[in-house]
């Protein structure tokens, strides 16, 4: 396939994606994780139909990095906010704790599995593999709760709590990615620095550029100048970090977070940037799918099973903790934690970032497990979320459109 054709295809996807955020009727369309686009990319990719070859994927790497960085920027800008409301401290704590428990459980399970199966050429590779899969599997996609809430017309304290948790669990996985990327600094770097400094530099670059950008948008900039500043700082941060072989995802996330925190126009910024997320996400998911290689390791199925099982258990524990602390969650039953099983954009972004940074067994395995986990989450998460909200009495059954009408959306 000609690169221009691929670019056109991605633009068409982006065009379709923009319609998916357009009107209420289409909000519930597709799957919350967007895993169907990953499947589409896999189908077109070099390992199935080969319409998009390996060389072309390599030539599109800058586009992918920008897309991933922009997505992380939007996540950072939105971090700690559910819609226009600030996430309550309790939810922030639960979200962070949930990410630690889930990521930790998954990383531990994967670590023991790969040690047992002797996967990975070195201990460093094994750390990268376990840590990467842990980071990719620790979040709950923000879109999942919104997806179910929109479809079921659910309103209530549990829906609100789950929504807030989904908006507050992205911080730790991205810090973990920064640490893991720092384990293998670029050999081209002319300024020697201790290993422990690189994650701090990653976060620092994001915060500094974000702080600077906040100062810029503080003044009465015109709308198009504001876009120029947003694009400019994001591209600068992505490119500079990529040159240092650090995590572009982390730097962009902290850039967004800093802008939301330091700028008095955080609300306006979120309103400006939010509509761009879906149009960028769909092409990124397709390109992620094209990178997937199921042949990269004979133990993929075992590693993926271990990761997903650990994730399932971790979510059950989180649900149990929620139920212990909240009467509303208790009403939803013991399996309420499984409502948070959906993973999606960020998980696959982390997987893709690993595939680009550590090509070969490590990167490919992280990406495959991230995509498989997102797929599995589709079967469990939305269904369990709907059941939990029903059990908690937060679904307005009268407002749910009939099945036929819903299918048409």
């Amino acid at each position, binding site marked *: 396939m000609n690169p221009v054709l691929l670019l056109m295809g991605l633009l068409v996807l982006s065009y379709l994606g923009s319609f998916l955020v357009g009107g209420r009727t289409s909000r519930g369309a597709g799957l919350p994780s967007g895993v169907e686009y990953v499947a589409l990319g896999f189908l077109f990719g070099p390992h199935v139909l080969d319409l998009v070859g390996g060389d072309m994927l390599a030539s599109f790497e800058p586009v992918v990095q920008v897309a991933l960085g922009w997505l992380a920027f939007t996540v950072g800008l939105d971090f700690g906010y559910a819609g226009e409301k600030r996430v309550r401290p309790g939810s922030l704590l639960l979200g962070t704790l949930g990410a630690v428990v889930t990521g930790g459980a998954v990383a531990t399970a994967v670590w023991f599995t790969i040690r047992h199966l002797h996967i990975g050429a070195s201990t460093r590779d094994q750390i990268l593999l376990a840590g990467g899969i842990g980071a990719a599997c620790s979040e709950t996609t923000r879109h999942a709760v919104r997806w179910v809430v929109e479809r079921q017309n659910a309103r209530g304290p549990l829906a609100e709590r789950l929504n807030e948790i989904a*908006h507050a669990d992205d911080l730790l996985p991205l810090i973990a990615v920064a640490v893991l990327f720092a384990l293998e600094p670029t050999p081209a770097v*002319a300024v020697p620095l201790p290993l422990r400094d690189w994650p701090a530099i990653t976060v620092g670059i994001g915060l500094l550029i974000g702080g600077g950008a906040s100062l810029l948008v503080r*003044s009465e900039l015109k709308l198009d100048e504001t876009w120029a500043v947003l694009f400019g700082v994001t591209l600068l941060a992505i490119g500079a970090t990529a*040159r240092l072989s650090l995590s572009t995802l982390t730097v962009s996330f902290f850039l967004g977070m800093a802008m939301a925190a330091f700028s008095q126009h955080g609300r306006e910024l979120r309103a400006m940037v939010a509509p761009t997320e879906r149009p960028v996400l769909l092409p990124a998911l397709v390109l992620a799918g094209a990178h997937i290689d199921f042949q990269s390791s004979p133990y993929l199925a075992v590693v993926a099973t271990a990761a997903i099982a650990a994730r399932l258990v971790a979510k059950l524990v989180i649900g149990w903790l929620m139920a212990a602390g909240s009467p509303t969650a208790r009403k939803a039953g013991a399996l309420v934690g499984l409502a948070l099983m959906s993973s999606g954009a960020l998980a696959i972004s982390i997987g893709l970032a690993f595939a680009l940074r550590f090509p070969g067994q490590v990167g490919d395995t992280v990406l495959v497990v991230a995509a498989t986990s997102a797929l599995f989450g589709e079967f469990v998460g939305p269904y369990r979320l709907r059941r939990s909200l029903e059990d908690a009495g937060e679904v307005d059954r009268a407002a749910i459109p009939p099945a036929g009408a819903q299918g048409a959306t």
Partner: protein
Amino acid sequence: MSGGAAAVRKGLGHHAVHLLLLVAFGALLFYVTRAVPEVNGGLWMITAIGFLLLAGTLLSELLMPLGLPSLTGYLVAGVVAGPYVLNLVDVQTVKSMSPINTLALALIALAGGAELDLNALRKGVRSLAWATLIQSLPGLLLVSVSFVAVRPMLPLVLRELPWGAFLGVSLLWGALAITRSPSATLGVLAQTRAHGPLTTFTLGFVMSSDIVVVVLVAVILGVVKPLVDPAASFSLESLKTLGHDLFGSVALGTTLGLFIAAYLRIVNRQMLVVLLVLGFGVSTVLDYLQFDALLTFMVAGFIVRNLSNQGQKFLQHIESTGTVVYVVFFAIAGAGLDVPLIRVMWPVALIMAAARGLITYAGARVSGWLAKDSPMLKRWSWSGMISQAGLVLGLAAMVAREFPGIGPPFASLAIAAVAINQLVGPILFKVALDRAGETSRVEQPSFSSIRPPAMPG
């Protein structure tokens, strides 16, 4: 304390912050390029685009109190960040950013076409016809004469040419000198949002001069070739191909314009993506067909404006997308300016640029008198004709290809002269628009005026 003084102080504070941040972002980039000297291909291009976007935006803000157009800020940002000053953006990266130029030129041509109102053009057709005639023929000849006059100052290869060949080269120089810059014109108009007779005249002139120049250069190349290269014979064969290309471009542009008008009428959503598809996809098709992209897009914009009622809507879409692209486009142009070459060639390039400027001015006064233009148009119509950009560089490269013996020094001189016109032209045009009272006083929408839509959790 007066409000005005407070505003000035606040303005100064903001400018100081902008300057500091610009330096800080530059320092970050400088550190990264030194920390990791190895360039990471495409990704570094992304960084360069980001920095040029920021630097161009901030520098244009900083230069605004001096009355300079934003475009000058973008160009200066590119020059400073470019390979010959700070080398934050190296030569290879500048070259690799050509897709941005393709997109920008498509948007510029679309906007240029969509700005051309048929009724206004009809009213000013006499002025346009006289200006085109005077600037293209006597203008071309007089610039050629001035080239002959500076013969002793020219690079050795050129001044040692036999007289016949030298006259041919002079004619080629004259042909290059009558090219204008639609991009610079549109860039200044996008910032000033100017409207009025001078705006309409300049747009009409600059846009139509593209076609005139392409035809003239083809004719002159045919005439000059036997003078410079004794082995070649007189041939206007290229005109046939050119005619085919021009006709094809107009036909395709018309179809494209009708399609855009229909899309705007029926769908009218996600024009950003549609414009990207037009900029990248259609440009590739045009390149394959060897049609003139500038002409095709200009005709498309013209059709949307004049054969449908979607013109204003279309212009708004382009403006909202275009600003960001223009910043990068002009900053890349600045980064591409060959500063060492200008340093070597500046005396003769400056003389040539000044001669061209004077001849353009005199030609505009004469054509204004012949067309019985308004005093304002007589006084300022030359101002939009000074800027030169990509087209002349393309033509210079073509000349260098056709005449390898004299090509490199000829192209170098052209590049140096264009650099001067590129920097001075937009400033003159903005001054003229301000003096003519055509610069819009309406404030552009500010960022803080956004009303965030209700966002679902």
